[in-house]
């Protein structure tokens, strides 16, 4: 911490040109750290600042919005090579930026990319790292500490970190609260020109093969379309797959669907299958027996389609549609294909 202001860095998480909500959560977390220091009346921290670091391409417009979340400035490394995640390159770029700006700490949200990136970066920086953190404190007079769950959440372990270096912290997404946007302020965007040729990279990306969204694991997918006995056997399930394709979701099923061998066992939702909590779940032709609902109770938004108005699944639904799946869904798919997913 050589600079006289505490500068907290957060890594911008973006996908397909849009900043993900976890970034706002990180901003709020950084804000909390600064406020905490202020309450402890630490002169040094009281006018600390939050800097967002973004690596990517074509993000200018999106990054300007960050002012609404209490972020003071943005360091933006732009380049076509950075449009897609590449662990080795990203770590080298961040190291270079770190050496230039010397922040107090680097916060990231814990996801599949950062669980690769954070250890690489920390090792290049020769600093401490804690992953899957649920609580983090940093201040000048007090200890720097991080807490994380172990043994499947039964226990917690707390780390005390060296004060002399800049720790790399990845925070679990479910502790990152979504924050309301305030009025946007103009923020400074510092463009950093990066020439990947200057790094001595040992790996090279030769080909990128995209998985179809419907092939995603059901417990990882954000949108899941699930079908039950009411959808019918054989080709009847195609309607579910079609909806999944148009919504870019994954496909799951109840036990009968798996018994009919229309889907593999990995796609079973429920007591003897997987427990899922997607942001959006379609339950089509599913009556909602306890053995199924055990596996989906924690889903965020649930749309249920069933011919029986008394079906138990409607108790769990945010939107209940009484009707035949094969009549309702083709029209839904038609509308989605007409207007695109986000303009319904």
């Amino acid at each position, binding site marked *: 911490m050589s600079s006289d202001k505490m500068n907290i860095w957060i890594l911008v998480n973006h996908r397909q040109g849009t900043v993900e909500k976890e970034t706002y959560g990180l901003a709020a977390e950084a804000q909390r750290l600064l406020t905490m220091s202020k309450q402890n009346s630490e002169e040094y921290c009281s006018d600390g600042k939050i800097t967002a670091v973004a690596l990517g391409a074509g993000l200018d417009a999106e990054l300007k919005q960050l002012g609404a979340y209490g972020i003071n400035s943005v360091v933006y490394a732009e380049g076509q090579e950075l449009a897609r995640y590449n662990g080795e390159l990203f770590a080298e770029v961040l190291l270079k930026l770190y050496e230039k700006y010397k922040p107090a700490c680097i916060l990231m949200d814990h996801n599949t990319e950062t669980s690769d990136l954070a250890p690489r970066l920390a090792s290049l920086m020769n600093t401490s790292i804690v992953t899957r953190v649920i609580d983090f404190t940093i201040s000048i007079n007090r200890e720097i500490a991080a807490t994380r769950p172990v043994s*499947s959440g039964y226990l917690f372990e707390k780390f005390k970190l060296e004060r002399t270096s800049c720790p790399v912290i990845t925070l679990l997404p479910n502790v990152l609260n979504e924050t309301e946007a305030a009025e946007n302020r103009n923020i400074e965007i510092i463009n950093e020109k990066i020439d990947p040729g200057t790094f001595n990279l040992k790996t090279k990306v030769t080909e990128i093969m995209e998985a179809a969204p419907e092939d995603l694991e059901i417990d990882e997918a954000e949108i899941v379309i699930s079908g039950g*006995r009411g959808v019918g056997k054989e080709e009847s399930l195609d309607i579910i797959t079609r909806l999944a394709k148009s919504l870019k979701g994954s496909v799951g099923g109840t*036990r*009968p669907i798996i*018994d009919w061998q229309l889907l593999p*066992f990995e796609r*079973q939702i429920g*007591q*003897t*299958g997987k*427990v899922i909590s997607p942001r959006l779940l379609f339950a089509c032709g599913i009556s909602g*027996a*306890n*053995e199924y609902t*055990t596996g989906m109770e924690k889903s965020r938004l649930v749309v249920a389609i069933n011919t029986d108005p008394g079906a*138990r699944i409607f108790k769990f639904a945010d939107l209940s549609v009484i009707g035949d799946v094969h009549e309702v869904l083709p029209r839904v798919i038609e509308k989605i294909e007409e207007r695109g997913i986000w303009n319904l």
Partner: protein
Amino acid sequence: MLAGIFRHRSVWKAGREESRSGSWAGLIKYIFEHGKILKKRGRGIAHFFVFYGFFLPLVVIILAQFNFEIGIIPSGIVSLLLDIIGTLFLTGIVILLIRRIVSQDSEGPLRTIFPMIILCVIIITGFLAEGARLGISGTETVWASPVGWIFSVFVPASPSFMQIIIRVHFYAVLLFLALLPFNFAKHIIASSLNVYFKRKNPRGELNKAYLTDDSAGAAIVRDFTWKQLLDAEACVSCGRCEENCPAFISGKPLSPRKIIRDIYNLMYLSNGEKISSNMLESTISNDEIWSCTACMACVEHCPVYAEPMDKIIDMRRHQVMCKGQLPAEAVPMIRNLEIFGDVQGKGAAHRMDWAMSPDLEFANAENADADILLWPGCSGAFHPRYQEVLKAMVKILNTARIRFSTLGKDELCCGDPARRLGNESLFLELAGKNISSFRKNNIKKILTLCPHCFNTLKNEYPGVEKELFNKSKENIEVVHASEYIMELIKVKRIVPKYPLKKNIAFQDPCYLGRVNGIYNEPREVISSIPGTALKELDHNRETGFCCGGGGGGMWMHEHSGKRMNVIRAEEVAEADPEVLCTACPYCLTMLEDGLSSLESEKETKVLDIVEIIAGAI
């Protein structure tokens, strides 16, 4: 021969210590009545003949060594009887011999046909000798030896031939006795011993887990007790266990016979001494031990009282408590038990949610002066379908003006799923807390709806109390709803008046029927409703077919073969009752699902016995 017997004894005695006492009366009754063996008609009768064909002539021969006189007529009758018995013996042994030869079991014929052939030789030479004797000494007592007479027609009437045959007969007898410990015939001793030492504890009480500082359950053959190893020694590989095993029938990779035979083979391979550490695991796969539903059909049908199921549970205990190898689907349920104390993971705060209704008002056990404690169980408290059944029970209790209470939020899972999935420490924790609650509230009598809770509370808790608290108090009386309802009907506290449906079939829950012998009460309860006819399913009472939900089956995926609940549902659909009645939350869920998966036009309704009575009063 004696050396052979003692060698065998040393092998199974290498097992762990277990205190067992024997019963001579039980053994004698078992052998002479032959009831357990006769349960399987054809082969049972064949064995009956072979046993008496072996035993009675032996008695006659021993008696014949003494000098005493009996008249011509009595001796003729004895001779005639021996002839008849000998013929039946020969028929029996030929039937069993053919069965063993055509048997699919590869080791069956090799082990068993040799002693059987010796027995054939003994009996045939016996008849030949008799025939030769008749040929020589004339035929004035021919009525007493009909078989001998037939043989005398084509046997040479030569004394030297008779001498040779009698010698062959005698040597064959000696050979049979000398080789007795070394072949299949050893079951005469081993199986008798196993019957002598048969279980005196309730059948539903699992053995205490074997726990040491660095191991749990059965990792190696020597982790079994000597009685468990004697089970393997006593096994005759008759196959009745697998014929009745729902996992085997539905095409799962489990045969209780194979489990026992594997243990037997390993026990001799290691010779009771040098035991390689992981042999048990590599011989009996995890797929096998996790296919078991703990329905106890194998235990029920074993003619020599061997118990394959407790060995499976002991191997599960090792997998779970030493290696953390529980099928992935069952992990969340076990975790829910650890954290929340119920199988659904809803937590104590929600345990009384089912009772949140103005018409459901009753006391908490803490300050109640109640006749009985109602035990809703996790299914009654949390499963939406079984909550209906629980409410029906409350209606019955109110109608009968029974003062009852519940433990309320202090109730925890009884621990049955944890114990049968091999997590003994979790079971002990849950059981210990429940027992403390019972004693704190001075509970005298408990009413359960779920047969699994019933079995655990009734048969396993007394043992746990002794183990954990080191004191045995007066046992708390535990009754199942079907028994209790029958009691209420008998004393006319409730009167079923309104006929519901004509044809009601009854699914025997394993833990009510087979494990606790309650077959009649539910049937009496159903029959007590006017205008109701009870329809028996093909598999009923002792042969009742498991729904697939027990032994943790509710939380495991059936990876291969046909689904057990579908097999049972097909049988129900064939019998075509209007209502299928059961008395277990697992059966209810599994069979409702099984029947709806048949997708037949006419859907059979599945109701709990409690709902049926609540609808009839």
